[in-house]
């Protein structure tokens, strides 16, 4: 599903030039659950942003479902992104002014799904995430675990083929963290490809494979199953 070859990303600020990704290559097959690990600043989030088509690489190749997307413009990337990719972040990134329902509904609105169908699909996923009873609450009124379940609900409501999770349990205690990991595992079992950045060895054990990075390069790949 994803194949990157010699991917490169350099950040330039006025004083320094940071090589965030240095000729990184790997492949992720459809249906896989992959963890990406490595010390802080080694380029994990940068990688995820590129895989999520939020940012473009400076060099190398990025095949998404066999199509070269490294040089896609913003509009094409946005289009591909909203149909295929869901995101989960460490800091949940819910919109404070919108209710749980409205937050989850967002991707469907932008996909142009009609009102009644939207309602049905949002309710279904809220139900699955066991957060239906909180549908009219605002994010501030929820616990961290609940907020992250809403974020996951939002990530999966449009049935993406790929979920990118950047330290999804980073802000959660272990029981809430486990709950979220179980949700991700379930999704993966239903066929969704998942790439997750994590600092937690415990969480990484939910995945099939761990990619370890250092200074923008892969160092090892452990296969867990």
């Amino acid at each position, binding site marked *: 599903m994803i194949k990157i070859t010699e991917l490169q990303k350099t950040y330039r600020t006025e004083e320094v030039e940071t090589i965030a990704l240095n000729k990184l290559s790997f492949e992720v097959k459809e249906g896989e659950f992959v963890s990406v690990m490595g010390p802080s600043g080694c380029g994990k989030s940068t990688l995820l942003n590129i895989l999520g088509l939020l940012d473009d690489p400076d060099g190398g190749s990025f095949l998404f479902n066999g199509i070269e997307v490294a040089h896609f413009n913003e509009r094409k990337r946005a289009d591909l992104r909203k149909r295929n990719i869901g995101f989960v972040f460490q800091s949940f990134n819910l919109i404070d002014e919108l209710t749980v329902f409205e937050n989850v509904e*967002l991707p469907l609105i932008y996909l142009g799904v009609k009102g009644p169908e939207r309602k049905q699909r949002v309710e279904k996923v809220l139900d699955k995430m066991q957060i239906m009873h909180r549908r009219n609450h605002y994010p501030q009124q929820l616990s961290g675990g609940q907020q992250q379940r809403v974020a996951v609900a939002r990530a999966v409501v449009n049935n993406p083929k790929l979920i990118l999770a950047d330290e999804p349990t980073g802000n959660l205690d272990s029981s809430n963290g486990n709950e979220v990991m179980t949700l991700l595992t379930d999704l993966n079992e239903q066929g969704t490809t998942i790439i997750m950045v994590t600092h937690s060895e415990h969480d990484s054990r939910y995945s099939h494979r761990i990619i370890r990075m250092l200074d923008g390069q892969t160092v090892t790949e452990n296969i867990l199953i």
Partner: protein
Amino acid sequence: MLTNFFTIALRNLLKHKIFSIINIAGLAIGMAAALLIFQYVRFELSYDKFEAHAADIYRIQMDRYNEGKLSTRWAAGTAGIGPVVKDAFPEVTSLARLYDWRGVMSYQDKEFREENMYFANDGFLPMFSSATTQGSITGALSNVNTAVLTTSAARKYFGSENPIGKNLLLNKKEPFTVTAVVPDPPANTHLKFNILLSWPTWVKWVGDPMTTQWGWDGFFAYIQLRPGADPHQLEKKIPAVIQAKWGEEMKKSKEGIVVHLQSLGNIHLSPNYMLEAEANGDGKAVKFLSIIALFIIAIAWINYINLSTARSIERAKEVGIRKTLGSIRRDLIGQFLFESFLINSFAVILALLLILACLPIFNAVAGQSLNLSMLSTASFWSMLIGIFLVGTVLSGLYPAFVLSSFKPIAVLKGRLATTSHGSLLRQTLVIGQFAASVLLMVGTFTVYRQLNYMQHQDLGVQITQTLVLKGPRVMDSTYDNKLTGFRDEVLRVPGVNSISASTEVPGHKVGWNAGGIKEVGADATKARQYRVIGVDYDFATAFGMHFLAGRNFSRDFRSDTGAVLFNESAVKNMGFNKPEDVLNKRIDFWGKQYTIVGVVSNHHQESLRESYDAHIFRLIPDANTYYSLKLTGSRDSWPATITAVKTQYKSFFPGNPFDYFFLDDRFAEQYKADQQFGETFGIFAGLAIFVSCLGLLGLAAFVTNQRTKEIGIRKIAGASVGNILSLLTRDFMRPVLLSFLIAIPLTWYALEKWLDNYAFRISLTPLLFIGPALLILAIALLTVTTQTLKAANTNPARSLRTE
């Protein structure tokens, strides 16, 4: 403490440059605009109030009624009204009487046409102008053939000679001995005279009864009341006196007179009555401009409040930390007020610079003559300090209270809903700002449409290509022959098509107002007032007047010396409907009978502000007020024509200054005030909108900045740049659109009021609103888009990273 306040405030201003620039610029523009307008308004309001007895002086304004219906409202009423009121009431301590006069004055070889002369009685100078520079005012106007000059009139005729005791000649005939010289009347008086002629001379000319009767209008009467006397009580007692004196006579012709006492200080901004000494100021324009001034400064204050509270989130953290460090609320309010003080101080400095830079432009546009001396008046500075203090406190206090009321825990935990806080107030204020902008913009459009309408309406009379000469005043028994000779010679000048003599030309109110005119044989109660224009045989043709019935005067009918023409309104005034109905009817006109031989369409004698009058055209072939020459060719060729005409004029009418004007220019002058009002209104409306948009720009910058995270999240959830743009834009445009809903009825009402000033006016159409509304919408959209476009295009990965 204060230095701490100061350093923090200054640092804050420097750190938030957009915020500071927008506020200082907006406030400075608001202050400068408001101050300039207030100075203008103050000048308009200052008229005649400088007179020592201003509070006790009243003008007797007189309304005439015909069969119970109001016919004419006179600024200068009937001859007898002044003396009657003065004699009947002890609380009236003195009476000033004036009668307007024109003519050519000369001293040795100096001759000038004088248009600001009055016959004035003894009571006038003590009431209005107690100072003299030469001679004494006591008795200065008591004897026949004496005159009082203003300083500049004296200089004009006598140079450095002492004028006292010297003789001026009126129309090269009547001598007037100069008895006193008084200072020039200031710019802010409605009575601007050059020369006063003694009342007894007037009485000598016309006979004493003529100055005390009730049927002859055109006499100004000013009365001075004993201090403390109640003018309203007096006004109520006057009808009984009129009734006792003239009641019987008036009953016979079913006429009536009602007088009102106009306080001297109010005359200038009152409506224009018949025969005003000078055209009054426009009270409505003064009111509208004052409102604009308030709008602009209020809009700038609103910007400050809006931007400060919008920034409150950014500053919430600072407040939280200060509070946890033990800062008490009072200190915080002080801190924020101090910032407001600082911003307002900078704005004052900038406003003063703006005023210095823009004063000439303002004067040119508004037709004012404000000068830097206003900077040395107490009123200017008290106004400035007033605006400064109100601005500092009003716009500083609310943000100060909002900011200082944040609970430290809530703030530090980031539990302040970012966009909702104070957003209702902000939206309301933005709605207010834009409602004001719409009002001003639609107002500007309407003013221009109305002006344009008035200037392009068919006047019913031809005024282009017309050179008008002022007729001779110095004449003798050979005038008729001279006029014939002059006419023949002028027609021989290349470029002159025709020449016609008349007592009036279009461009101002007809001065000859004749009452008591009725159909021969009709009841005395049918007598009405008409405005009479004396014209020669060629006038109607030369001016392209349109005949509805009958014919023009003709040299072929010897009987036409007893003929008149009516206009449509005159036909109605006499009680007929169709023009044909009055043909060959005979009328009584001051003891003589005339036959109506023709009816012409109504023409616009005055600006379209005024309605049509009932006109009677009388055949006066030797009228000597105006000679109208219809010219051929282009303007470039006219100077030569004028030179040739002047040579003839000087040879036929020696002793008369050659004065002329172009009729279309003169006619257009009636619109000068409207034009100036339009331009002034337009410019300040533009400024108001500019300041509103400055505020919107600041608000858009802050709000989109605050919503960076939300925008990022939405983009990750699949929003396109277009989605984000429309989301943000919708939020900003909602108050703008709402403001339209509020502004439209208000504007409609205000403009209807303004247009009511005009007898001939455009009607308000939705189109007048749509154009300006779209323009404002576009400007607002553009303003907001500069900010939202940036936000919508930011890479969401970046915006979330900064969290």
